[in-house]
Structure formats: C-alpha cells, structure tokens
C-alpha cells in the first residue's frame, strides 16, 4: 500500500508535499496526479460511474478556478478532496436522496444478494461498494478518506469541515456501519447482522 497510482502513499502526504514544494506544477499536472484518487473517491461517494466522471470534471474546474486566489497556507490535497466532497454531496441532494441518512442504490437493488455465495456472484469489490452505499454519506466520506486516501484525522477534519474530535466519532460510527452492512452482504442477507449479546 505504500505506493499506488503514481506516487500516492498511504496518507497522500508525499504527493501533497511534492505539489507544494514544486513550483512548476501546472493545471495539467495537478489533474494527472489527482485524477484517479479523486475519481475513485467521488465514485464511492455517489455510487455511479457516469456521474462520477461528470463530478470529477466539476471538481477540477472548480479547483482550477479558485486555485490562483488561494493563499500560501493551502494544503492542496485536503482542499481538492473538500471540493470533491461538496460537489458529490450537492449531486446527492439533487438526486433527492437524503444525504444524512443511509440510502439505497435504487437503480441496483441487490436482487442477487440472496444467492448462496454472494461473494462468488458479485465479488469483494462489489460487496464493498454495496456496503458503502448503505452507509450515511458523511460517515462514508470519513471512512474513504481514512482508509483509501490515507488522510490523518486532522486532514479529514479540514476536508469535511468538522472538528477533529468529530472525526473520531465519524470514523467510529462509519466502521460500525460498514462492518454491519459488509457482514450482512457477506452472509447473503440484505439486513445488517445483529450484534451478538455482550457482557
């Protein structure tokens, strides 16, 4: 996990540092460097590949428009993800889906989840996507930023515009929700697995 997609380390900092230290970065190079992680982040947030393409385009255009006005303290990586997050949230609101509650992908109702071995049918990647889709979008964003983009708690707070103490809560809730939905999908049921009774 150390390197992927052209020098993006687990927490994204190496790329951020390179961008900030290097004075010859162009819009094109920023796009080339960030297009894959930003696209995947948006894709997992909205759950639709076509729409993710459109929203990735919107994100970069918004960023390019604002970038020359930003001051020297800009953390490019966190700032780009913030734009991407807001862009995706706007799109989800436009879909008239309630962002702050769990939502289902209406176009892809999990009809095939009742098969005896759902993993064989749909694969781990699809299980992850479906489990993510069933989570509240805010928690989804925090979990993606932490696990896939390698953001620190401080960077997640900056990106989602919440307090760092809130990140702890978001990630805790996110992991609980993701675990429940993923395990339910793994087990071939569409309902979250009930917690075992605990002391």
């Amino acid at each position, binding site marked *: 996990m150390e390197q992927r997609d052209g020098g993006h380390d687990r927490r994204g900092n190496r790329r951020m540092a390179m961008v900030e230290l290097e004075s010859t970065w162009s*819009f094109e190079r920023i*796009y080339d460097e960030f297009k894959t992680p930003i696209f995947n982040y948006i894709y997992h947030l909205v759950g639709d590949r076509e729409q993710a*393409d459109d929203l990735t385009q919107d994100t970069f255009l918004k960023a390019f*428009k604002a970038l020359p006005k930003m001051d020297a303290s800009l953390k490019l990586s966190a700032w780009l993800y913030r734009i991407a997050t807001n862009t995706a949230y706007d799109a989800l609101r436009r879909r008239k889906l309630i962002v702050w509650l769990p939502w289902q992908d209406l176009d892809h109702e999990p009809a095939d989840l009742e098969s005896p071995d759902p993993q064989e049918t749909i694969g781990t990647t699809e299980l992850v996507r479906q489990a993510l889709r069933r989570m509240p979008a805010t928690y989804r964003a925090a979990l993606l930023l932490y696990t896939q983009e390698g953001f620190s708690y401080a960077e997640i707070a900056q990106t989602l515009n919440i307090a760092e103490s809130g990140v702890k809560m978001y990630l*805790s809730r996110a992991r*609980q929700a993701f675990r429940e939905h993923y395990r339910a999908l793994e087990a071939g049921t569409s309902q979250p697995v009930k917690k075992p009774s*605990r002391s």
Partner: protein
Amino acid sequence: MKCEWVEEHLSAYHDRVLDPATTDQVEHHLLGCGNCRAWLADYERLDNVLATMPREQPRPELRARIFASPEFHEILHARAAVPPPVKPLVPAVPHPVHRAPSSIHVTRALVGVAILMIALASASFVLRSLAAQPAVCPNPAAGDHLLTRAADGSLLLDGQRLTCAPHAVPTAPFALSPNGQWVAFVNQAGDVVAMHANGRAALTIRPHTASAQFTHIAALSWSPGSDQLMTLTSSGADASAFQVEISSLASTGSRILDSFTTDALLAAPRWSPDGVFLAYALTTANGATIRAVRVNQNGSLPVQFPIIGTLGDLAWLPGTADTLTYATESPATGTSITIAQMSSRVVVEPIYQSPAALTVTMTDYNALTGAWALTLSDGTIASVATPTGIVNPLAQLDASTQLFWSPDGTTLAALSQGSLWLISSNGAHPVATNVTGDPVWNPSGTALAVVSAGTVRVIQVTGGMVALPITVGSSAHIAWSADGQHLAVLGQDHTFIATAAGVLSATNDPGVGAPLWMVEP
C-alpha cells in the same frame, strides 16, 4: 467495563489516537474479551479490504473534456486579468522556475508555498512534508535514535521517513527489544516484522493461525537476550484460539510453542529473566490457570497450575530461572501474593495476605529487586519483598493511589488525586500537582518526566524540577532515551526532543502512538 464502552473507543484505539489511560483500559478489556477482540480483528480486516480496493481510471476523454471546456478557457482569461493576490510571508528569494512551453502554471500560490516552506524550515522546524522527501535507508551513527510514526502511519527515524524496507506501514503492537536495537510490529499485510535501527527488516513472519478469516496479533515480546521474538496470535470466529509462536533472529520462520483456547487471557506471555520460560494466565473450564512453557525444548508440555481468585499481575522473580510471583484477589481471603517454583513439580507458597477487612487496590512490581508495591483500601502504601514476604509500610495516601517503581527499585512514584509523591528511604514528599497522565522514569531512576498543569516537567529524585517549554494539554506520549540524555514528547501538535535542561528541537507532526528510542551499537 462494558463492551459497549470499549466498542465506542475501539475505532480510535485501532487508529492509535486514544490517550494512554484510555488505551490501557481498552487493552485490559481486550485481553479478557473475545467478542471485542473479534470486533477489532474485523476492523483490521475491513480497513484492509477498503485500502486494497482496486482503483478504476476515469475515462481518458475526461481530460479533453476539462481542458477543452469553455469553463476552463474562462478560467485562463480570468487569470490573465486578475492580479495575483498572494503576498509572500517573507522577502522573495530567487527561485528557479522551469516552465514547460505547453503548461499553464499555477506559479503564484505555489511559489508562495515554497517560500513559506523554506522560511519555516530555516526556523529549525522540520516540516512534515519535508520529512516526505525521497528517503534512503539510514546509516545511523552509534547512539540513540528516535523512532516515531508520522500522522500518516509511516515510520520516521530521527524525523526521516523510512522507505527503504519492504515492510510498508506498521500497525500495532510495537515491541522494542531490551537492547534497543530491534523493534517488532505488525505490518498491514498481517506479517510480523522485526526491524533494525537502520530501517532494514531482518525478519518477516506470517504467523500461523487457526483461521485465516479473523486474526489478531495480541502481543509481541522480545526475549531478555533480544534474539528471540514471541508472537501471541488470537484467531477463530470468536478470537478465542490462541497460539504462542517463537521466531529467532538467527533463522527464518517460526515455530508454534503452545496452542490453547480460552474465553479470557488473564496475562500475556512474560519471559523468565534467563529466557528459558514463558508464563501466561488464562481461564479454562476449571477456572483461572497459570501456564508456563519452556522456549527451547521442542515438544515439552506446558506446566499448568490453578490459581484461586482473580489474577492481579504475574511476574518472574529476579535472579531465578523458574520462580513466578503473582497477586490474586478473592472475596473470601482478600489479596494474596504468592510465589510458585516450577521444578519437577510446582511448589506454591503464599507470602503475603492483606490485613483483615482490607484489600489491595493497586500494585506495581519491580523486576530488578522483586519488590511489590501495594496500595491498600485504607490508603496505606507498602512494599512486599520476594521471596521473603517482608512488609514495609511506606506512606499513607488514599485508596486510589497509583504506583510506579523507578527502574532501579529505589524510589516509588505515587500518584494520588492529581498529586505526585516520591517515596524512598528518605520518606514521602509531594513533588507536583495537577498531574495528568502517568509519570515516566528515566532508565537510571534518577529523574522522571510528567505532565503537570499541561506542561512537561522533569523532576529529579535528589530535588529540583525543570518545567520544559512544552505545552501538551492533558496527556502526552513521553519516552526517555536509553542513556537518559534525551526525552521525546509527542504532544497535541508537535513532537519535541528535549534534555532535562530544555527543548532541542520540535517537529510539527505530533505523530501517532508512543515514540521509541532505538540504539545503534
């Protein structure tokens, strides 16, 4: 402690962002709770599933759609018309800018950032992003070197990112060898890695487990000779199947020393002083049990004997090869301290019994002298010598007093309702108030560091205190170097390296988890 409480903190524990006191509470619960261990194992597994998801590429035509769009051309026009708003924070310095003919440069903001970076670096702060410069395998000079984890989880040696070894980002737990030359941890692939102070991995072990689905490395521990590593693994659907494995720096692979199933591990394996035995405690169908196994005799059966009551702590007597001491508590008999010698048969001898109507509320054991320090429910602080059982009353504080022996066993630090006392042959003296977090002794036992009123203070046993200009909030990770010359403090915003006299350097990455001082011979 309820599982629900632990569950609320498990995610933060997994990410190593809990304060030390809460971390201890969670770890204590995890040792005894298979459900929560399974829950934690799930978090590790699912984080890994998310982190290793294959990435899809956006459509190739997206690039053209962006850069040929009317909106992008508007941005270019607007840029040409608007004066740059960025004001460098320091006088501009000549900075070569190489422009590719076809590129549209975002120079103003980025040059400003570069200048800011240079200015901060020259102010002797090592910025986190500078630590991300292409790193090499370090060739550390002889002496102490600080190992920390950056906020991004990667390892830093003296602030330099270790990228030379193929062990990737480590996760908990960390174990430093007694000689300080090796650190063991679990990487994201679930392998146990032993890494030398030069950043190179000498050992990478994939632990044997009963189930590939749920695996949790419950403990790592180095032998007293720093040449063997114990790995305790729990696995299975309820994380109740444990295995004790031994790996040696002198050979590859590992061998299983013991396997057992238990609902609750009461004490993780501890090495005997000569490295011959490992002892641990667990519950069985017959109740609580201590189990000890010889490390270097293949096929030898573990020695096992029952204990009465609840186990408080388990340790080895100094200077002996085969004698354990442990504290237990039962409603019928109060608190007991017992020694157990394992030869051809196990000889168990109680050496201390708490006075009638009193119980022991806190203990600390000193492995060098073999002395127990106790807090009794009436606030009495006392020591109990092993193997004699001689009791020595030391002070009168309160029942919640926490105890911390100095490494040399000559001084006892006692934390009572936010006040820190030092107790020695010279009597008991209060030395600090508003103390939050545990005191941390230097290796020689001549001084300790503590967070008092939000500031790190170094207190000398012989008298005298220095308040370091380090503000850390309520808690901090503090570690002394092996020679006692340096102190690393991981606060809320920075990592500091200090001496007992003052701060030497500060890095603006507070890092995660506890810092470790490694030793290059």
